[in-house]
C-alpha cells in the first residue's frame, strides 16, 4: 500500500514519544526537524508528546546502552495498549558502526518488540514520517484484536 493510502485511513491523531537510548544525536535532530515547519508532522495529526503514558507510538533511536536497557523497557511498559514501536536509524536496527561495542545490549529488538524499522544514518525526515505512518496499520490491527478480546470477555 502506498503512503497516501496510509494517511487516508489515518483513523486518529498519533501521539508520538521519543526515547534516545544512546544514539549520536543525528536521528534526534532529524526528529526535531520533522516537527519544524518544513516537514511539519502536525499537519498529519501527529504530535510529539512528553510522556509515554499519553503516547501511541514510541520512536526509539540509538543502539541501547547497558544503562538505558531497563529505562527503555520501563518506558515501553508505561505506554497504554495498543502501542507500536518505531526504530529510527541504522544503529537501533543492527548496531551499525557501534556493532563491536562492549557496552551495548541492543539492537532495540532484543529488548522490546519492534514493528517498524526506518533505515538511514540518519534517515531523512520524510523517511521518519513514512515510518510513523506505517505504524498506523499495525496499530489498527492491534486495536481490532483488543476489541475482539474484550467482547469475548463480556
Amino acid at each position, binding site marked *: 500500500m502506498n503512503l497516501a493510502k496510509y494517511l487516508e485511513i489515518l483513523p486518529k491523531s498519533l501521539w508520538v514519544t521519543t526515547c534516545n*537510548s544512546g*544514539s549520536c*544525536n*543525528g536521528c534526534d*535532530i532529524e526528529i526535531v526537524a520533522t516537527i*519544524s515547519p518544513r516537514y511539519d508532522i502536525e499537519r498529519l495529526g501527529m504530535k510529539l508528546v512528553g510522556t509515554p503514558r499519553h503516547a501511541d507510538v514510541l520512536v526509539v533511536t540509538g543502539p541501547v546502552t547497558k*544503562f538505558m536497557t531497563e529505562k527503555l523497557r520501563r518506558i515501553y511498559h508505561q505506554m497504554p495498549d495498543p502501542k507500536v514501536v518505531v526504530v529510527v536509524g541504522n544503529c537501533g536496527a543492527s548496531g551499525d558502526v557501534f556493532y563491536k561495542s562492549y557496552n551495548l545490549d541492543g539492537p532495540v529488538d532484543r529488548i522490546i518488540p519492534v514493528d517498524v524499522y526506518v533505515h538511514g544514518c540518519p534517515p531523512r525526515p520524510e523517511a521518519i514520517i513514512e515510518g510513523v505512518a506505517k505504524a498506523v496499520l499495525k496499530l489498527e490491527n492491534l486495536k481490532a484484536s483488543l476489541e475482539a478480546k474484550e467482547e469475548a470477555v463480556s
Partner: protein
Amino acid sequence: MEKQYTIPIGPVHVGLKEPITAWLDLEGEKIVGATVRPGAIHRGIEFMARERNPIQVIYLAERICGICSFSHITAFVRAVEDAAGIPVPPRGQYIRALTLELERLHSHMLWAGVACYSIGFDSAFNLGMVLREKVMDVLEVLSGNRVNYGVGTIGGVRWDITPKVAAAVREMVKYYRAEFYPFYEIVTEDPIAHARMRHVGTLSYEDALRYGAVGPTARASGVRCDLRHSSPYEAYADFDVTPIVPQDYYGKAYGDVFDRFLVRVHEVYQSLDIVDKIMDGLPEGDIVWEKNATKVLLALKKAEGTGWSAIEAPRGDDSHVVHLAAGDENVTWWKVRAPTYANAVSWPVMFRENELADAPLIINSIDPCISCMERILTTDVGRGDQRLLTRKELLKMSREKTRRLMGK
C-alpha cells in the same frame, strides 16, 4: 529550616533531548545543590577504534555526535595527519573551514530554536527551525547528506565546491543577512524571553575560568577564548577571527542564559562573514593529498608517532590525540576530549539559587552534546557501586594508564 527534597531530572525527560541525570536538592522551589550523573549513553567508541584502520575510524568519529560530526572528523584527521606528516592542499583546507562554519551555523540555529522551545516560546522555535533548513539545504548540495556529511578524509576533503555549490552558499549568506535579524529581534525584544533567560544560570568570569568552561559558554561569561583566534588551524589564519564576548556588544557580561543566546546569535553573523571570505579567497588546486584510499592506508601503516589536534567546535574546543604504530594498520589508541565534558562541570554552579522550572533550560544552555561526552568513562554508579574516586586516586589511575599506553 525548610525540608530539603531531591528531585531527579532525567535520564529520559521531556525537556532533554539526550539521556543525562541530574539530582537537584530543593528548598521549596529553589535549587540549593545539584549532582550530575553522566554515562548513560557511553558506547566505548575509543575502544572500538582500536580494531579499525584510520579511514574506518573517520566514520566512527563522525558518529560521536550527529550535530558536530564534521568538527570531530576534522579534529581526528588533523591528528592523524599530524602523526603521519601528511600535508593538506590549500583548497582542501578552505573547504574544511567552509564546512566547519556551515556546521556552526546549523548548530547555533538549532540551539537558539531549542532554547526558545525550553522556555515555551514555540513560535520562535519554529522560526529558528525554518531558518536552519536553509543551511541544511546547502550542506545537502555540497555533500548529499543532511547530518553526517562524509566530507572530510585524511589529507583533504572528498567533495569539491562546484559552481552550483558556490551559488547555493552565496544565496544562503544573502538569505541569512536578510532573514536572521527578525528572529534575533523577536527573541531579544520579548519581555517574557528576557525575564526567563536574564539572570538565570549565571556563571561568573572567575567560575568560568575555575571550572574550565570552553566555547560559547565561556565567552558568554566574558572570557576571550576562541581557538580560531588564538591558535588558527586550516584556513582560519587567513581571516581575522576575534572572540565574541557580550561586553563588546552590550557593555557588560552577565554570564547568564541570555548572554549565551546573544553570543551564539552574534557568532552566526561572524560565521556568515567568514563564509563570505572563504568563498572570495578560495584557492585553485587539488582538494586531497592522495585520492586512492589504499595508498593512503599504506602510508599510514608505515607511520609511527602521536598526533594531536584541537579545533573550535560549535560548543568549544574539541581535542583529539591519536597514536599510530608502524606496521600496524589500526589506530593504536585515540583520545577525544569533547567540549561538553569541560562545560558540564559548571552545571552544578549554574544551578545554584535558581528555580526548579529553569533546570531544563540551564541544562540546555551550554548546548550539551551528551553523546560527544560519553565515550570512555568508568561508570561505577551504573553497577550500583557508589564508591567515589578521590582526586588523588584519579590522578594515580590516569598516570598509570598513560604509562601503560606509552610503554606499548
